[in-house]
């Protein structure tokens, strides 16, 4: 169906097409800009345009597609760099140069590409929705091709070895086809059989997270912090070092130079777990702050749908977004251009429900093909003025499982990662303790509580020390202050630019163990009457 533009206001366009569906994708104007129907009235519809509307004129055509906004899912997404609407940025660069001007419709997947297919089901076998019929090798992974929705029956023909994505991979006896790729609506989570509670830790290589505030595979965490608190560096470190199969990184409304740095580094660096290049396990979905705002709103959905797609291969996927505040701001801009009633700080009242709906897409699941996969999420939040009482942080807090608060005063002292150890928490700690005790260190729980206790006591003593000076404290207290400093400087601090950027569990444990052992023996010696200065001198001479 085609119609005309009857009104334009910023990124919203009003059209006279009839018979549109809500959230249907439309093409707007002669330039064929992508838009989504956000409101339908009797004789007009409001369309949210995902691209720059400059130069769009009244009476230009609007075309409906009958489909919602979708992402294309199939082999070849890995190591791709996409924008918020899943346009492949590398190919876009080859076609239209270093600047994104007048956007063409480009398929996210290189459909002409060839793949080697290994069938696991044979001709004449009975298959139904969600069942795996075979796989192609995508980098180190087996990329499963499964039977799409609404297709079931006996296989009449199935491909062997070389396949092309634009041709069917299998044909059923009733004539229906199994394609190599398919399009899925971004706002609808991919289906799975059932969800489990997370039981396995996600090793990030960051000591303060792995030890103090463990995140679970399939869990969610948020990292709020004012500017300069190292959110992006921490995000990128986690993306580099996490013990995970696939990373989907959504650069949502952030800096272009940072993305350039990330891309260059990922192309060069190796995954510490598998030694292959990081890019091979990564999908980047980039919508920098100067790219269209409405596409920024869609970008996290685009990215998370791709993440779910790989989860369904039975893989562990980590979704990182930097930053979710920019997404919320995009939502606010769209909402205000639709003239909706604003809630707190101008954000729409559905902010909290959208966010919780989004965060619930994480989890450990049994996929339709019977495999177990997980999707974990770490979202950074940029609260204005570093004030955590603002709506985005508060809405995230209610649904996320871990809260890693990045502290401006720690950052000013160049304590990185600037995770505040008093305010942060992880709800997964208790469930993962058992796993930790079994796999890493039996006395994990004890070490953790001792460590927290020392840090807590230091805070109390610090106030006294500020008045009387450290020298005025008793030896036992001075020892505690000394140990706390060791914990802060040697254990919690981690320089992202040195080898220490990645700390495998063994190193994490040996450092904390060494510090706590020192504390224990020193404490015993103090009780036997040895002077603290002697103990410290002895340690220095070692």
């Amino acid at each position, binding site marked *: 169906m085609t119609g005309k533009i*009857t009104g334009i206001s910023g990124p919203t366009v009003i059209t006279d097409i009839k018979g549109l569906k809500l959230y249907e994708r439309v093409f707007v104007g002669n330039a064929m800009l992508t838009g989504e129907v956000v409101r339908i009235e009797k004789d007009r519809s409001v369309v949210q345009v995902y691209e720059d509307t400059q130069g769009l004129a009244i009476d230009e055509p609007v075309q409906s597609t009958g489909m919602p906004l979708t992402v294309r899912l199939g082999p070849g997404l890995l190591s791709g760099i996409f924008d918020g609407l899943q346009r492949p940025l590398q190919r876009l660069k080859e076609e239209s140069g270093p600047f994104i001007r007048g956007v063409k419709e480009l398929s996210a997947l290189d459909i002409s590409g060839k793949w080697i297919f290994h069938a696991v089901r044979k001709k004449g076998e009975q298959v139904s929705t969600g069942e795996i019929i075979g796989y192609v090798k995508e980098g180190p992974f087996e990329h499963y091709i499964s039977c799409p929705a609404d297709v079931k029956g006996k296989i009449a023909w199935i491909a062997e070895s070389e396949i092309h994505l634009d041709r069917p991979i299998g044909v059923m006896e009733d004539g229906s086809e199994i394609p190599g790729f398919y399009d899925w609506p971004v706002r609808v989570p991919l289906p799975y059989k059932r969800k489990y509670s997370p039981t396995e830790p996600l090793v990030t290589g960051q000591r303060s997270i792995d030890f103090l505030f463990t995140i679970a595979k399939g869990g969610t965490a948020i990292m709020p912090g004012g500017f300069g608190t190292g959110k992006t560096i921490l995000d990128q470190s986690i993306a580099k070092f996490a013990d995970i199969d696939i990373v989907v990184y959504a650069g949502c409304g952030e800096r272009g130079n940072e993305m350039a740095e990330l891309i260059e580094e990922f192309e060069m660096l190796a995954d510490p777990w598998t030694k292959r290049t990081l890019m091979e396990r990564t999908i980047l979905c980039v919508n920098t702050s100067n790219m269209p705002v409405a596409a920024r709103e869609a970008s996290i959905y685009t990215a998370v749908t791709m993440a779910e797609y790989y989860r369904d291969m039975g893989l562990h996927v980590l979704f990182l977004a930097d930053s979710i505040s920019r997404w919320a701001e995009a939502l*606010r801009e769209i909402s205000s251009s639709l003239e909706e009633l604003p809630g707190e700080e101008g954000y729409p009242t559905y902010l909290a429900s959208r966010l919780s709906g989004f965060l619930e897409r994480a989890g450990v699941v049994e996929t339709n093909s019977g495999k177990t996969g997980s999707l974990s999420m770490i979202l950074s939040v940029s609260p204005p003025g570093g004030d955590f009482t603002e709506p985005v942080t508060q809405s995230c807090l209610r649904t996320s499982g871990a809260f890693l608060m990045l502290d401006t005063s720690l950052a000013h002292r160049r304590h990185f990662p600037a995770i505040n150890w008093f305010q942060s928490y992880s709800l997964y700690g208790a469930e993962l303790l058992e796993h930790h005790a079994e796999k890493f260190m039996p006395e994990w729980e004890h070490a953790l509580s001792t460590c927290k206790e020392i840090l807590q006591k230091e805070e109390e003593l610090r106030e006294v020390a500020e008045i009387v000076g450290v020298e005025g404290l008793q030896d036992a207290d001075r020892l505690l202050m000394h140990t706390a400093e060791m914990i802060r400087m040697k254990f919690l601090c981690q320089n992202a630019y040195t080898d220490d950027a990645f700390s495998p569990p063994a190193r994490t444990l040996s450092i904390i163990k060494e510090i706590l052992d020192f504390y224990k023996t020193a404490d015993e010696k103090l009780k036997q009457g040895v002077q603290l200065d002697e103990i410290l001198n002895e340690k220095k001479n070692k």
Partner: protein
Amino acid sequence: MRLFDHKYGTITSIAGPLLFVHDVMSARIGEVVKVQTPDNRQLDAEVLEIHGDTVLIEVFAETHGLDIKRTSVVFTDSVKRAPLSRDMIGRVFNGSFQPKDGFPMFLPEKWSPIAGFPMNPSARARPVDFIETGVSVIDGLNTLVKGQKLPVFSCAGLPSKEVVAAVLKNARLIGGKEGAREEYTTGHASDFIVVFAALGLTFYEYSFYKRVIDDMQSGFVAFVNMADEPVMERLLAPRFALSVAEYLAFDKGMDVLVIITDMTNYCDALREVSTAREELPGRRGYPGYMYSDLASLYERAGRIRGQQGSVTMLPVVTMPEDDITHPIPDLTGYITEGQIVLSRELHQKGIFPPVDVLPSLSRLMQRGIGKGHTREDHRHISNLLYKYYAKGRDLRRLEAIVGRDGMTENDKEMLNFADLFEREFIQQRAGRRSIIETLDTGFELLKQFKLEK
């Protein structure tokens, strides 16, 4: 495309900079419109919203003297573009790209939409090339690199313009694998050029900058919007400046340093216009889209993989009430790659440039220093200086409570270090210091003290 200009006399209402025009045929969003006033002036305007045949127009000039009957508007069927040519080098323009220096307009080589196009993130090159500003506290501790955007956060009454002038006079690029060998300064090479955008400047400030630019004898392009000139031009001038910068950088392969002062005036103009449009206000009355709007300027800094040329940006932000959490510095800090913060306390002590090292930061510094960029020991010296100074600053609070006599020897040393650091390293009255001099000064300072931790 329309074959001829559309002219309408069907204005139905005027409010501040906004005009409603009725019965308009096929208007374009963002289309340039000329408004002809009853006294035959011609004003620039732009299409903001379209509802059927009613069009909302925003005028980029003072709208006094307009009326409904005799004012007419002409639709030009094109979006706003900047004329570009090498000939604009050495020229001064106003916020509407009209010559301000008495010479005639140049002949444009090409026209480019002033909003620019977003750079494809996969085409960006990571900024790594060191720019020597000649200011120790920037070069040594908050290094600027090519393609970076590093704002100066100032407070009312602080010498931000002197700091900017020092950078303008002394900035030079140091290239080559060997580090500090080949170099060219703003004064010498034709490939390094300054694009200067002054927004809402007083005459006094303008004449100061004018002298600096005249002394530089190097390539520059200036856009000047004075404090008493139209507010709308404050929104245009930086976009013209950046279009020019992108053209010189990516079409002509030059290294461009863009200085915009003062972004606070820009944001206030944005708020004023947003209020006139009756948009929902966000924090402190600034529009909710201010982050995206600021990003559309700041993000135009950068480099392209496999291409010559770069756009580096040094905007000046005056923090209202000295408050770094105010929306303007806050949103700026979220977009830019670090910040140089000026401090009232240091200024009172007579230290110039009064840069407060602790909240200042250059995010891209790590890649631009060390072997092959500056000197091998740069990172080490800068970390130690920062650490001891931070400690010394911390101890000053303790000193205020217990007095210097009640402190340990080491703490006293630390306090002395902080004082000397401010007086010898940050303080830099006359002239530039090369990066080697800066690092040597820092090293000497560290040697004088036996500091334990």
